[in-house]
C-alpha cells in the first residue's frame, strides 16, 4: 500500500506525465511541419514528370487521349479524371469519364505530347512534318532527326528575327521620337499657333533627313525581317486528335515534342530534370499557368536582399541608440514596448502606409523634382521594387531591433568594463567589443526578418508587385538596376495562379510547385544567414566554446 503511494508520488514528482505531454507536443509539431512540407513537395514536384498518355476506348466507338490524374471510386460511382489537354480544341483540360463507359485502355507508343507556348500541351498522333508542299511522314525513319533539326532552326530564326526587330527599332528611335512630338503638337491646344507650326515644319524636315539617312539600309532590313518571319511561320506539324480531326500546329508555337509511352525511366528522368530547370529559368506563359517563374524568383530574392540591406543597419543603429546611449527611463520603456508591438500590426497596414508615404509622398516628390518632363506618367510615383522593399523593411525592422537589443544585453558587463578600463572611448568599446559580440544576435534577427519578409504578400500587392512583368529590375539597359520597376513575387504568384487564373484545375500543380519553390528559397536564404552566424560565432566565441 505505502509502496504504491510512494510510487505514485514519484511518478508525479519526477514529472513523468509532463515529459510525456511535452514529447507529444513536439511530435505533433514535427508531424504538422513534415506533413505540410511533404504535401507541397509531392504535389509540386510531380508536375514535371512526363505522365503516360492513355488511349481510352469508349463504348460508343470513339476514344479519348489523356493522362489519368484522379480517380473517384465510391459505391455509387466509379470514374476517372482524364487530363485531355488540347485546350484550344476541347475548351477544357480535364474530363471525367465513367468507368462503365470504358471498353479498353491502352498506352500506344505513337502518342505524342506537344508542348506549346499557348493553350497548354497537345495530345495526338503526329502524321507528318510539313512545310509548304513538301512533307516528311512520321513513319519515315529520319522523321525524329528532321523534326529536331527543324525545331532548332525555327528557334534560331525566331531569335534572329527578334534581334533584327530590336535593331530596326533602335535605328528608328529618333524618327519615332520626332513622330511622337509631332503627334503631340497636332493634338495640343495650340496646334495652329504660328510657333507650333514653325516647330512642326522643323520636325518634319528633320524626319525627312533621318529617314533619308536610314534609307535603303532600313528597307533591306525590313525585307529581311519579313523573309525571316515567313520562314518561321511556314513549318507545321499535322496531328490527328482523338476526335479524328487533324490539327495543323505551327512549329513556331511548339516548344518540345516527345512520346511519353515510348520513353523508358531514364529518358523520363532527363525530361523531368529539364522541365524543372526550365521552370526556374523560363518566363511565364498563358497568364502564368504555364512556363516558368524566373521573374518571380528574381523579384522575390532581390526584394529580400534590398530589404535586408535597409532594415539591418536601421534596426541595429536604432537598437544601439536605445540600448547604449539613450537615458533609461519611462520614455525609453514606452518606445521599447511600442517597437515590440509594431511586430503585431497587420501587414496590410504597413502596405497602406507604404503606398501613402513611400509611393505617393516620396515617389511623387521624386517625380516632381527629377522626372518632371515625364509627368503625368509616373516614374517613382507608382509601386516599385524599392518601395515594396522599404515597406517590408519597415515591417521587419522591429524584429531586428528586438533581437539586436537582446544581443546587446547579452554582452558581458566584464567585457565592456575591460574595454573601458583599457582607455577605449565608449564608441570604441561599442564598435570593437560590443558589436562583434552581439553579431550573432543581430543575425538571428535578420534570419527572422528574412523569413517574415519572404512570406509576406499583402503589403506587396499595393506597393509594387504585379502578376506579370516584361523585364526584371536588373538588366543591360542603363542604369542597370531599375529600382522603380514593378516586379513579380512568388507569394503573389501563388495567389494569382491559384485564384485568379482562368483555368484553376490546370494551374493547381503550378501552385504547389511555386509554393515549394518559395519554401526552398526561404530555407536557402535562411541557411545563408545561419552559415554566416555560425562563422561569426566561431570567430568571436572561439572553438573552445
Amino acid at each position: 500500500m505505502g509502496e504504491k503511494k510512494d510510487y505514485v508520488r514519484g511518478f508525479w514528482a519526477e514529472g513523468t506525465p509532463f515529459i510525456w505531454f511535452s514529447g507529444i507536443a513536439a511530435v505533433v509539431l514535427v508531424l504538422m511541419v513534415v506533413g505540410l512540407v511533404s504535401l507541397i513537395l509531392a504535389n509540386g514536384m510531380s508536375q514535371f514528370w512526363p505522365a503516360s498518355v492513355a488511349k481510352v476506348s469508349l463504348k460508343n466507338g470513339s476514344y479519348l487521349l489523356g493522362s489519368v490524374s484522379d480517380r473517384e471510386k465510391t459505391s455509387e460511382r466509379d470514374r476517372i479524371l482524364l487530363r485531355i489537354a488540347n485546350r484550344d480544341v476541347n475548351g477544357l483540360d480535364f474530363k471525367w469519364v465513367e468507368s462503365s463507359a470504358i471498353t479498353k485502355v491502352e498506352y500506344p507508343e505513337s502518342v505524342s505530347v506537344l508542348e506549346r507556348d499557348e493553350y497548354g500541351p497537345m495530345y495526338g498522333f503526329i502524321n507528318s512534318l510539313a512545310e509548304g508542299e513538301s512533307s516528311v511522314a512520321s513513319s519515315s525513319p529520319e522523321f525524329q532527326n528532321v523534326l529536331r533539326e527543324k525545331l532548332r532552326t525555327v528557334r534560331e530564326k525566331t531569335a534572329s528575327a527578334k534581334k533584327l526587330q530590336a535593331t530596326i527599332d533602335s535605328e528608328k528611335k529618333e524618327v519615332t521620337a520626332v513622330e511622337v512630338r509631332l503627334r503631340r503638337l497636332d493634338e495640343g491646344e495650340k496646334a495652329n499657333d504660328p510657333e507650333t507650326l514653325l516647330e512642326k515644319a522643323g520636325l518634319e524636315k528633320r524626319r525627312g533627313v533621318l529617314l533619308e539617312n536610314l534609307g535603303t539600309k532600313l528597307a533591306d532590313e525590313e525585307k529581311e525581317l519579313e523573309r525571316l518571319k515567313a520562314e518561321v511561320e511556314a513549318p507545321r506539324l499535322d496531328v490527328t486528335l482523338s476526335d479524328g480531326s487533324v490539327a495543323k500546329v505551327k512549329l513556331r508555337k511548339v516548344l518540345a515534342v516527345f512520346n511519353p509511352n515510348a520513353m523508358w525511366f531514364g529518358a523520363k528522368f532527363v525530361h523531368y530534370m529539364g522541365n524543372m530547370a526550365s521552370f526556374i529559368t523560363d518566363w511565364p506563359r498563358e497568364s502564368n499557368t504555364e512556363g516558368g517563374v524566373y521573374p518571380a524568383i528574381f523579384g522575390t530574392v532581390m526584394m529580400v536582399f534590398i530589404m535586408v540591406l535597409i532594415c539591418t543597419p536601421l534596426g541595429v543603429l536604432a537598437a544601439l541608440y536605445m540600448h547604449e546611449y539613450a537615458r533609461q527611463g519611462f520614455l525609453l520603456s514606452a518606445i521599447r514596448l511600442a517597437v515590440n508591438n509594431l511586430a503585431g500590426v497587420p501587414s496590410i497596414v504597413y502596405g497602406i502606409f507604404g503606398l501613402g508615404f513611400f509611393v505617393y509622398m516620396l515617389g511623387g516628390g521624386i517625380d516632381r523634382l527629377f522626372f518632371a518632363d515625364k509627368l503625368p506618367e509616373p516614374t517613382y510615383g507608382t509601386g516599385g521594387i524599392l518601395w515594396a522593399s522599404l515597406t517590408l523593411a519597415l515591417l521587419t525592422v522591429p524584429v531586428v531591433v528586438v533581437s539586436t537589443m537582446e544581443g546587446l544585453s547579452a554582452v558581458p558587463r566584464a567585457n565592456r568594463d575591460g574595454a573601458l578600463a583599457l582607455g577605449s572611448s565608449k564608441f570604441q568599446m561599442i564598435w570593437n567589443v560590443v558589436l562583434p559580440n552581439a553579431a550573432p544576435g543581430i543575425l538571428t534577427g535578420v534570419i527572422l526578418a528574412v523569413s517574415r519578409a519572404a512570406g509576406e504578400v499583402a503589403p506587396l500587392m499595393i506597393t509594387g508587385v504585379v502578376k506579370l512583368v516584361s523585364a526584371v529590375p536588373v538588366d543591360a539597359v542603363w542604369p542597370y538596376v531599375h529600382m522603380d520597376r514593378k516586379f513579380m513575387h512568388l507569394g503573389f504568384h501563388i495567389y494569382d495562379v491559384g485564384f485568379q487564373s482562368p483555368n484553376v484545375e490546370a494551374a493547381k500543380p503550378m501552385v504547389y510547385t511555386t509554393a515549394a519553390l518559395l519554401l526552398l528559397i526561404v530555407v536557402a536564404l535562411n541557411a545563408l544567414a545561419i552559415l554566416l552566424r555560425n562563422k561569426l560565432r566561431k570567430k568571436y566565441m572561439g572553438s573552445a566554446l
Partner: protein
Amino acid sequence: MSRMEQAIDELEGTAVIARNVNFYYGIVQALFGVSLEIKPKQITAFIGPSGCGKSTLLRCFNRMNEVLLGTRLEGDILVHGTDVYREGTRLETLRKRVGMVFQKSNPFPMTIYDNIAFGPRMRGIKDKSTLGEVVERSLKQADLWHEVKDRLNNHAQGLSGGQQQRLCIARTLANEPEIILMDEPASALDPISTSKIEETIQELRNLYTIVIVTHNLQQAARCSDHTAFFYMGRLVEMGATSRIFQNPAQKRTEDYISGKFG
C-alpha cells in the same frame, strides 16, 4: 629650489593622493572621508572585511565607478599631481595611465594577440612590427610568453583561468600604465595559479605602482610594501606592511589580522 617647487615635486612624486574622499552610490555612502597616499613604484595592499569599500576606492582612481549611473564623489584624487576629477579630464588618457585588472578575468572574445594589442590599437597604433613588439614585451612581463608564443592567433577563451588572468595583466601592461589597480586578481584561482600571479606581481615590483585589493592576508603580507586597512568605508590605518602585520596601532586592525572577524 623654492618651497613651491618642492611642494609640486612632492605632489607629482606621489602616485596617488586621496584627500577627504566621500563616495556615494546614489544615496548609499560607501566611503567616508578617506585620505591616503600611494607611493610610486611600490606595492600597496588594501585589506578589510567584505563591503568595506576597497573596490570602491580603487575604482575611484581610474573613475571606473562612473560606468554606474548616479554615483558621486566628494574630495580630491590626484594621480601624479593631476586632479583626475577636474572637469575636462579625458577618461581615455586617465585609464591608459591607470590600468586595471579585474577580479574575474575578462579576456575579449578575440585572439590572444588581439587582446594584448587592444589598448595600443585604441590609441591609434597600427604598425604591425610595433604592435608585435608590444605584444611580446607585455606577455613576457606577465610571464605568459612561453606558454602562448606559439598560439598567439588562438582564441583567448582557450586559455586556463590563471593564464587568462595573466593575459589580462599583460593587456593592461601593453598600455604602459603608470599605475596598475588589481581588484582581488587571484581570488577566483587555484593555489598554483595564484602563486603564478603573485610571481608576476613580484616581477613588476619597482617598475610600476601597484595597488592590490586582497582578502588573502598572507598574500598581502608576502607581496606588498604598504598595507591599508579599511573598515565600514573608513580608512582605519595605513603603513608599512611589516608594521601593520606585526605591530598594528589600532585594535580593529589587530582583531582583523588575527582573524577575530572578517
